């Protein structure tokens, strides 16, 4: 029995939603992001500091803001809601469980996938389907927002002046990637 289990250990056998995709243009290159762990974290104001300490990254409370530290990002999504992303795939559920304060954490590592958009036309490409003002003044580096990209919900994080991380649900990712590709093609003009 134990031999059989060893023979079928599939813990490295992930099939990524956007595996093999590449696209974009000279203005905005598109790359599927590597797997990451993610939490949908909900908590009241009094729990914020303990959770921040447990995560090692601040849960900011101002709309459209995020904090990052060593590949771990905490994105404000709502008055009691954060999306926590760890690019090093650390165990986020365990991290918040150690906080000892009232909160709700749900593992959404596989629910979301992400597309990295980079280039001088990144802003324009995303504005091909996203109605938000993405100018640096309105949406500086570190700004984040749960918003729409045409007919899909996305979570947008600006990682550099010319780079964004676009998070979306797994089954919407081919649509988001396809539309971003067309918009990226147009973004250089």
């Amino acid at each position, binding site marked *: 029995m134990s031999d059989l*289990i060893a023979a079928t250990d599939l813990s490295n056998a992930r099939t990524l939603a956007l595996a093999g995709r590449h696209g974009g243009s000279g203005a905005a290159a598109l790359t599927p992001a590597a797997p990451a762990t993610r939490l949908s974290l909900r908590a009241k104001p009094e729990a914020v500091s303990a959770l921040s300490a447990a995560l090692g990254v601040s849960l900011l409370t101002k709309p459209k803001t995020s904090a990052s530290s060593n590949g771990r990002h905490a994105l404000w999504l709502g008055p009691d809601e954060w999306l926590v992303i760890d690019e090093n795939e650390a165990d986020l559920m365990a991290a918040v469980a150690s906080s000892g304060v009232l909160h709700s954490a749900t593992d959404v590592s596989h*629910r979301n996938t992400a597309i990295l958009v980079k280039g001088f036309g990144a802003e324009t490409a995303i504005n091909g389907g996203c109605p938000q003002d993405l100018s640096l003044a309105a949406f500086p580096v570190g700004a984040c927002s749960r918003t729409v990209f045409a007919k899909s919900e996305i979570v947008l994080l600006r990682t550099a002046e010319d780079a964004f991380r676009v998070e979306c649900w*797994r*089954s919407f990712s081919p649509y988001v990637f396809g539309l971003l590709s*067309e918009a990226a093609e147009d973004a250089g003009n």
Partner: protein
Amino acid sequence: MWPKQAWKHVYEPQIRAAAGLGVSPTEDDTDHYSSRYAHCDVLVIGAGLAGLSAALAAAKTGARVIICDEQPEVGGALHYDKSVTIDGLDGFTWAQATAANLKQMKNVKVLPRTTAFGYYAQNFVGLNERVTEHLAKPDKKLPRERLWQVRAKRVIIATGAIERHMVFANNDRPGIMLASAARTFLNHFGVAVGKKIGVYTANDSAYEAAFDLKRAGVTIAAIVDSREKPGEGVLAEARSLGIEVLTGHGVVTTSGNLRVSSMSVARNGGGAARKIAIDALLMSAGWTPSVHMFSQSRGKVAYDNETQRFLPGTYAQDCLSVGACNGTNDLQATIEESLAAGELMAQASGYSASQKLELQGSNAFSWSGGMAGAAEGAGPDTTVKAFIDFQNDVCAKDIRLAVREGMHSIEHIKRFTTNGMATDQGKLSNIHGLAIAAETLGREIPKVGLTTFRAPYTPVTFGTLINHARGELFDPTRKTPTHALEEAQGAVFEDVGQWKRAWYYARAGEDMHQAVNRECKTVRDVAGMFDASTLGKIEVVGPDAAQFLNLIYTNSWDTLKPGRCRYGIMLREDGFVYDDGVVGRLAEDRFHVTTTTGGAARVMNHMEDYLQTEFPHLNVWLTSATEQWAVIAVQGPKAREIIAPLVEGIDLSNEAFPHMSVREGKICGVPTRLFRMSFTGELGFEVNVPADFGPAVWEAIRAQAEPLGACAYGTETMHVLRAEKGYIIVGQDTDGTVTPDDASLGWAVGKKKPDFVGIRGLRRPDLVADGRKQLVGLLTKDPKVVLEEGAQIVADPNQTLPMTMIGHVTSAYWSENCGRSIALALVAGGKARIGETLYVPMPDKTIAVEVSDMVFFDKEGGRLHV
């Protein structure tokens, strides 16, 4: 017209063809279109003198400026008015230099060939940019057109004015045109529109067209002015150029075959006409300010009696009109008004000017005059063709007829005559039509009213409006993690909302019916595996989670122990079934809720809505986890045997892991939430694994399943199997008017519960009355006949029409496992009719059915608990 039948095939097609409405293409559009959202501090609509001045002033403050113009290049009226100089430069040259200057500024976007077509709420303006239409060999990568959706903090409307034609007999001959058109031909394109040209005007501006043409060597036969007193400046200039001016005169008709060859001129009020040979006739009745954008912004126009114009009156949004569209005639006044507006709007957006901009402009003449309505020569004859709407062929006489027929509102007159209803929306004709109507009615123009300006300003192609949303990008196509594997296994997919779901797996030589029969048999005899990933999943977390579910569902959740599951019914406030699903309790404070595939999003919203508005005191949070998990259902007598070798850390025995339980452990080394539950009536498991592991685990389970004789099955088989067990599908067997009791689910309503959503609704008299439609089973007398879903049911097939219908079929299938057809139906007083014979009248026959209970297979339910 007779015969009546000819209308459809002869008269109407002929009339439509004659109307020139064109033919909608049937081929695919080979071009592509794009879309872009943009934000700015100041959007300037129109890039003539006013728009450019305003944009310049705004841009100099550092504000983000977008300026657009529908023409290929900026300049507006400077295209033709060669008398203008700005800061010492020829007007058109200044415009191009200014645009070049603006283009170099990082905070400015200059968009020529771009029409602002719609002004929506909160300064949201739609622009249509024609990107490659003017290019002979466009770069294929470039879109043909681009839709811009601009949110502007402030908008400056600088849309200018449109010249009106004169309304007189036979004013539609080729060669008769607006004076500004002839002047543009001459000054911008270097084309003289004739050799001997007549001018008919009520306004000074046409004189300048005559002067320019005369200086270019063209003969001006005469300027016919309906006024007794034209502007003194232009009159003197005409005399010094030797042009004959006939004041107080009108053109009473024209002649000519392929183009105009003469105009007949007579003194106003009658008298003999003099025929003057010409080969072109320029006309101008004055200028209509383009208040379209202002009006679309819901601003109210006001009538200026002195100048007989509608001008921007009360503003509704953060915008300003400048220049000709604001009724400002003087050149220097336009410049100053526009510069001030640019600066003001930038300031309002938070910017300030470091220095005052100044521009000095001059032109030859200031213009006066203008008229609205019919000139001499337009009638009162009822046969004279004095056109006011060239696109819809409406003449002055038609407006008069409309009034005589009793139309007194301009809205009625418009619809009676179709004046202004063509694609130009009356840009030329509205004011004339209004004036003629007012005159005929003996009322003042503002009393007759003005029709509403609507988007789009000019037509916009469908391609631009839909832009990227075509083909695969029309709508998101949601595929489950294991979709590709299922496709390779021969799955045929059906659409369920945006999802693609495996419908059935056809093997070589099988049709759908055969495939479904085989799948149904295999699941009950051996086992089957099914992709249930699309089921909605909501994680409900918090110390008050059970209390929240008590309020949302009809049944009780306090008694559910961690590790166990329960089937739950959710009602709307009105007491009718809204959704159902199995809920597993993972911990005291954590539930894994499942919903129907189609209900996932709305159930989440429904729960979130109640949580935030009705139960905000509860410490509980909801998270959509639908896409976190790939779900592989393994159902059938051999289900345990299939998954057992793969599962670690969970005792799968019936005693340790009974029906309606959930455990967390590992399958193939991958974390799993393993449910023991069933929508088939068989021993069943639902393997939840993180989505990316779905394909590998699917293949691992398949490798166990196939040697045992199990197979993959699709949604059709799932539907049949659940119907064999009488398990309902919300939305198919219920329709928003079905209570739990109607669906024989009364057992799932907590009788002792003090409150839940829908509890008061359930007590309404009609919801507890006798004779309600109830869900029952139907067995056709002929077991081979499968009923049609949606078919109506009657008690007496011999009654007179219209028959009294007592219910309808909600689900009907061939059941290979029962060896006969089965059906579910909503029937009035159905539960009391069990054993009765009812009838389903169909077009070709009447089918006799016996009412039964809803369980057709394994009535005792023993197969669930092995």
